[in-house]
């Protein structure tokens, strides 16, 4: 028996922030203090509050230490573990109130969350199957294999109302039913872990923090539809997730939970990892399968749907990581339990990756139907630096913006669609008054143009044209006619593209047009970028009454655009400077060198 446990986050965020060395330091310091028999260190998956990483939690007190450095470790060991006194200065402080919070569960960030998918993340050691089993792991698989018929499994998933968490929200049970009913002796189960939306890292955290949950669910799906082989398609950009998943697969095989004759029931199921290679379009289901088959990851025409003709031409169930992470608990706790969470048409919870201009960057899991306000203000801690919230972007390059006027809308699949965005896989990027919405639309379009596979013309050429319109607008060369033509082109691309990538690519443009048309018009008519982002529309100006005439800016200017005027501001000794806009290259060197806040950009 250990008297204390030290949990060190080993998710990608904290790992990149040196958490592996923190774990090492703990082990060394604990050994030095002769506590190895009393204190156990555990490397866990993501706790979620990535903004204050690296994160360490010490149980039984549940003390939540944030922004820990290697140098802090000896103090935590000697004070907390040896003397039993909390290290007050490292405890997490609520940013809004400045109040010190002792335990993770006391933070506002956690109080409003419901952790179903993430229940084991940051709690267990993902590299040890025994810890997963201790949390009822593989109980659902045992129940399914020994007490349930395949159809009963599908009925339970259907009854739960679970919808695909990859973005489109197709009912998972129906997908399974189609594949079970499809004719064919060989069938496949596949997992989409090609999480490519910029700013989204839910699936990675599940694979890093609780890989067995995905393996167990895939085995259950295989039993339900009659498959013996599964594939997990993971982004190669997620090395930690890939490694932990492989460890988990190997351990499951060793325990007889994967492989031949699982638990003596005669059921066979094997699982293989396939690595993606950095193509966003491979998140589309048919493109993903084409890629596993060893081809360029181009989508196929549907129908036939994967349920009838999927991987290697065989009936295939393909679900996303987060979808799978719900399955075992639905089987164990029942469809009614799952249905008790969320809204009528969107049951259960959803994980969002909060990022951008928000205090608590990190991973949050909320019941469907939670309002955007609760997510951003209560859980996310609001927008930092006293700036004003402008919009939240969901659904990545396929989604849209939600402006402040929809702050109180309950988040679910259908509500988000109705306001011109979408659930997407769960990225939620917060933007403040300093972000230009036209620039954001251009950013996403640049991404989709880059990632378009080139197979169909509307997407390949249409999106490129669309991007050219946006370029014109942000450089102040567009006309109102361009705006009209651009909007028409958006609908053309949506209606005519082959796959989800092209069909949704214009969404960032359409949704910003819907809510921030005035910003587009300001760029076109007034040749101004209201947020001060679009470089070619910016003007640097000197406020002459603030200028003491020191001439620092003049010396910094690479374009000789700054000269002295005749005007001496009241109370100043030297004449003020001014900028010649025709010579200015808008590098901003003058503004960053001025100590008197005399230079502004607008």
């Amino acid at each position, binding site marked *: 028996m250990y008297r204390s446990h030290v949990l060190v986050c080993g998710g*990608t*965020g904290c790992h*990149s*922030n040196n958490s592996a060395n923190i774990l090492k330091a703990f082990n060394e310091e604990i050994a030095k203090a002769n506590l190895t028999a009393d204190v156990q260190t555990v490397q866990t998956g993501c706790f979620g509050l*990535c*903004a*204050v*990483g690296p994160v360490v939690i010490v149980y039984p007190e549940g003390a939540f230490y944030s922004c820990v450095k290697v140098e802090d470790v000896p103090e935590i060991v000697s004070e907390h573990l040896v003397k039993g006194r909390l290290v007050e200065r490292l405890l997490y402080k609520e940013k809004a109130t400045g109040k010190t919070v002792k335990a993770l569960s006391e933070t506002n960030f956690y109080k409003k969350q419901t952790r179903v998918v993430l229940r084991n993340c940051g709690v267990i050691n993902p590299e040890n199957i025994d810890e997963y089993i201790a949390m009822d792991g593989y109980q659902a698989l045992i129940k399914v294999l020994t007490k349930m018929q395949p159809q009963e499994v599908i009925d339970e998933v259907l009854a739960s109302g679970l919808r695909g968490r990859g973005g489109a929200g197709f009912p998972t049970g129906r997908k399974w039913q189609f594949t079970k009913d499809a004719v064919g002796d060989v069938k496949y189960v596949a997992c989409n872990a090609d999480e*490519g*939306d*910029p*700013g*989204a*890292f839910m699936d*990675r955290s599940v694979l890093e923090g609780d890989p067995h949950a995905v393996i167990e669910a895939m085995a259950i799906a295989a039993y339900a539809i009659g498959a013996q082989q599964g594939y997990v398609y993971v982004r*190669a*950009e*997620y090395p930690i997730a890939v490694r932990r998943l492989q460890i988990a697969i190997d351990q499951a095989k060793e325990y007889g939970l994967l492989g031949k004759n699982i638990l003596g029931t005669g059921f066979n199921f094997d699982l293989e990892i*396939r*690595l*993606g*290679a*950095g*193509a*966003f379009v491979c998140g589309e289901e048919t493109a993903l399968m084409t*890629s*596993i*088959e*060893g*081809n*360029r*990851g181009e989508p196929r025409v549907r129908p036939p749907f994967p349920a009838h003709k999927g991987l*290697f031409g065989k009936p295939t169930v393909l679900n996303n990581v987060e979808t799978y992470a719900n399955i075992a608990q639905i089987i164990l706790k029942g469809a009614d339990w799952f249905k008790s969470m969320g809204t009528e048409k969107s049951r259960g919870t959803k994980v969002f*990756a909060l*990022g*951008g*201009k928000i205090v608590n*960057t*990190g991973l949050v899991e909320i019941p469907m139907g939670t309002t955007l306000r609760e997510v951003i203000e209560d859980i996310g801690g609001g927008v930092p630096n006293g700036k004003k919230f402008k919009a939240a*972007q969901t659904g*990545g390059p396929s989604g849209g913006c939600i402006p402040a006027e929809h702050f109180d809308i309950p988040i679910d699949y259908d509500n988000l669609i109705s306001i011109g965005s979408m659930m997407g896989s769960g*990225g939620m*990027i917060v*933007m403040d008054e300093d*972000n230009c919405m036209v620039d*954001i639309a251009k*950013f996403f379009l640049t991404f989709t143009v*880059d*990632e*378009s*596979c*080139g197979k169909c013309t509307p997407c390949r050429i249409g999106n490129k044209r669309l991007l050219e319109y946006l370029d014109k607008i942000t450089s102040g060369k567009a006309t109102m006619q361009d705006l009209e033509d651009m909007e028409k082109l958006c609908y053309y691309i949506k209606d005519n593209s082959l796959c989800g990538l092209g069909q949704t690519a214009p969404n960032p443009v359409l949704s910003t047009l819907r809510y921030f048309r005035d910003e587009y018009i300001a760029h076109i008519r007034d040749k101004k970028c209201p947020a001060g982002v679009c470089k070619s529309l910016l003007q640097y100006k000197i406020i002459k009454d603030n200028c003491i005439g020191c001439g620092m800016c003049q010396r910094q200017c690479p374009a000789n655009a700054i000269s002295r005027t005749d005007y001496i501001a009241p109370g100043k000794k030297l004449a003020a400077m001014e900028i010649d806009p025709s010579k200015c290259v808008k590098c901003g060197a003058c503004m960053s060198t001025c100590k008197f806040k005399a230079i502004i950009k607008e």
Partner: protein
Amino acid sequence: MGKIKLTTVPFQGTEAQEKELRAKLADIKKLPGALMPALQAAQGVYGYLPVEVQAIVAEELNVPLEKVFGVSTFYSQFTLNPRGKYQISVCLGTACYVKGSGDIINEVKNILKIDNDECTPDRKFSLLETRCIGCCGLAPVLSVNDEVYGRITTKDVAGIIAKYNA
């Protein structure tokens, strides 16, 4: 998909590398859909995929070189260009972008005088724009090989590069 850039650096593969690759391919070619894992293994051995290496893959898997080239140029993780000793990656994911990573990458380009996916003539530094690497809490993020620098500003870039130039 971006433009295809073929390298001008002469191929310097060794016999030992070729032997290692052929041994790996002997196992991989048994898999259904072996081409992607094969190319991943080849890039693991050589660090990049010049045509000479793609030809070995084509021969071992018994597929046309044209098909291998089609796949290797489709995916952004496969690179036909050698990497520098220090690979600088700048994340242009949404979270980093809204926090100014666009300025960061421009600063790197200015200092090293190379563009995205290029290598300095002395093969010391190469630059790669990357998609979200998932540590959005540290945005904006720049990494040099496995070393991650988070929450940086353009002013930090020169200092970071100088560390590796010593």
